[in-house]
């Protein structure tokens, strides 16, 4: 009803994601990944997915879970290969991978949310990333033309959200979650704490709810640490 974006759970949030869909998934490494939605995608068993995500998880967590079940046809990422199954599928040709610079990845999300269809960036000039891309020269400097992403779904994880879809992230878990939330034709947000409208301070919203279409409170967050490092 109205502007209430709430759905019951991850299963309902992803109910219309079909085989062959393109999905953005927020997070950096395992930090701030949409754990509940990934579990639901695995349970639903949708296949031939194109996943846009900075990384591809580890063998038994994150997007790695969707690789185990061979649901991913293509990964668009900046840094991958922290898991053996990923490497095996890549080398056997089962999995296609497009590697792009991290800032370009983030900006292609942001520009989708800003309504700017393409943008110039110096990242990748003179490298194989430039192959087949348009370039422009301004004031003697060369730039690649990169397109804003055009993804059917974006799935992000936030710390707090309200029923209108306003989102607040915690610490470095904001990472790709904020720009991806702005980029999906349908954006799904899972949050640790879902509150009623009026309970979040409007000054502290990181992504306004206009960008978010579905929201639910997740459960049983593992929040796994990839590289536990402590002081001596």
């Amino acid at each position, binding site marked *: 009803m109205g502007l209430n974006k709430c759905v019951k759970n991850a299963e309902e949030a992803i109910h219309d994601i079909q085989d062959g869909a393109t999905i953005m998934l927020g997070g*950096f*490494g*395992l*930090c*701030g990944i949409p754990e509940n939605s990934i579990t639901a995608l695995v349970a639903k068993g949708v296949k031939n997915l194109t996943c846009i995500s*900075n990384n591809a998880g580890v063998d038994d967590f994150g997007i790695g879970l969707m690789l185990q079940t061979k649901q991913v046809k293509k990964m668009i*990422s*900046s*840094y*991958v*290969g922290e898991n053996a199954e990923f*490497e095996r599928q*890549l*080398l056997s040709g089962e999995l296609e991978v497009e*590697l792009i*610079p*991290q*800032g*370009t*990845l*983030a*900006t292609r*999300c*942001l520009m989708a949310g800003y309504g700017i269809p393409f943008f110039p*960036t*110096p*990242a*990748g*000039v*003179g*490298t*194989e*990333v430039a192959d087949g891309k348009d370039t422009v020269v301004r004031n003697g400097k060369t730039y690649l033309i990169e397109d804003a992403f055009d993804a059917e779904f974006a799935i992000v994880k936030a*710390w707090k959200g309200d029923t209108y879809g306003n989102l607040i*992230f*915690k*610490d*470095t*878990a*904001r*990472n*790709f*979650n*904020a*720009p991806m939330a702005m980029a999906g034709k349908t954006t799904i947000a899972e949050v640790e704490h879902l509150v009623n409208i009026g309970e979040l301070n409007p000054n502290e919203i*990181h992504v306004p709810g206009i960008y978010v279409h579905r929201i639910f409170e997740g459960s049983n967050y593992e*929040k*796994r*640490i*990839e*590289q*536990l*490092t*402590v*002081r001596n």
Partner: protein
Amino acid sequence: MGLNKNQIAQRIAKELQDGFYVNLGIGIPTLVANYIPHGIEVVLQSENGLLGMGPFPIAGHEDADLINAGKQTITTLPGSAFFDSAMSFGMIRAGKVHLTVLGAMEVAENGDIANWKVPGKMVKGMGGAMDLVASAKNIIVAMQHTDKAGNSKLLPACHLPITGLHCVKKVVTDLGVFEITKDGFLCTEHAPDVTIEEIKAKTAGKLTIAADCKIMEVA
């Protein structure tokens, strides 16, 4: 015998200036944070979305939501700020970060760098390296002078796939300090027990020894 990794980091730390915002890459560059000179204030940027990165947490105080670009648990310092990945690379692209220190597989005498891909080996990706080298005003490379087979990593031209063109300003290796000039590598300092002859023998790119080339000061 040249410098060890900590000594390379220690030498690079002398390049830090009061008020600098600094991005340190993974590997030797990370160690630079251990040698920030007393009496100056610098802010470390982690490109996954933090300015003001502090040391690793005390055991039991780690937080899964607070990591660096190497995915290690970290802490924040007073005055720190969080932001998203798009803004992070925005500030990098806009030249707000004063100094970037990163590792490399090869550096060419014209400042080209290769550090992301070895054909035939598993390719993990460039991460933020291409964005950093394309925009940073001041890039210092920290690396071993030669590879494990003894081949020079300071070359006339990079053999490996390029990360960025004409971007490196200075290279600090286990053997010495090398500025990138229009005439190639200029050796301005050499490690305490390394001879100029050894540096010449192990540098494939065009090399000039500065007239006032001095011994590196490291502990």
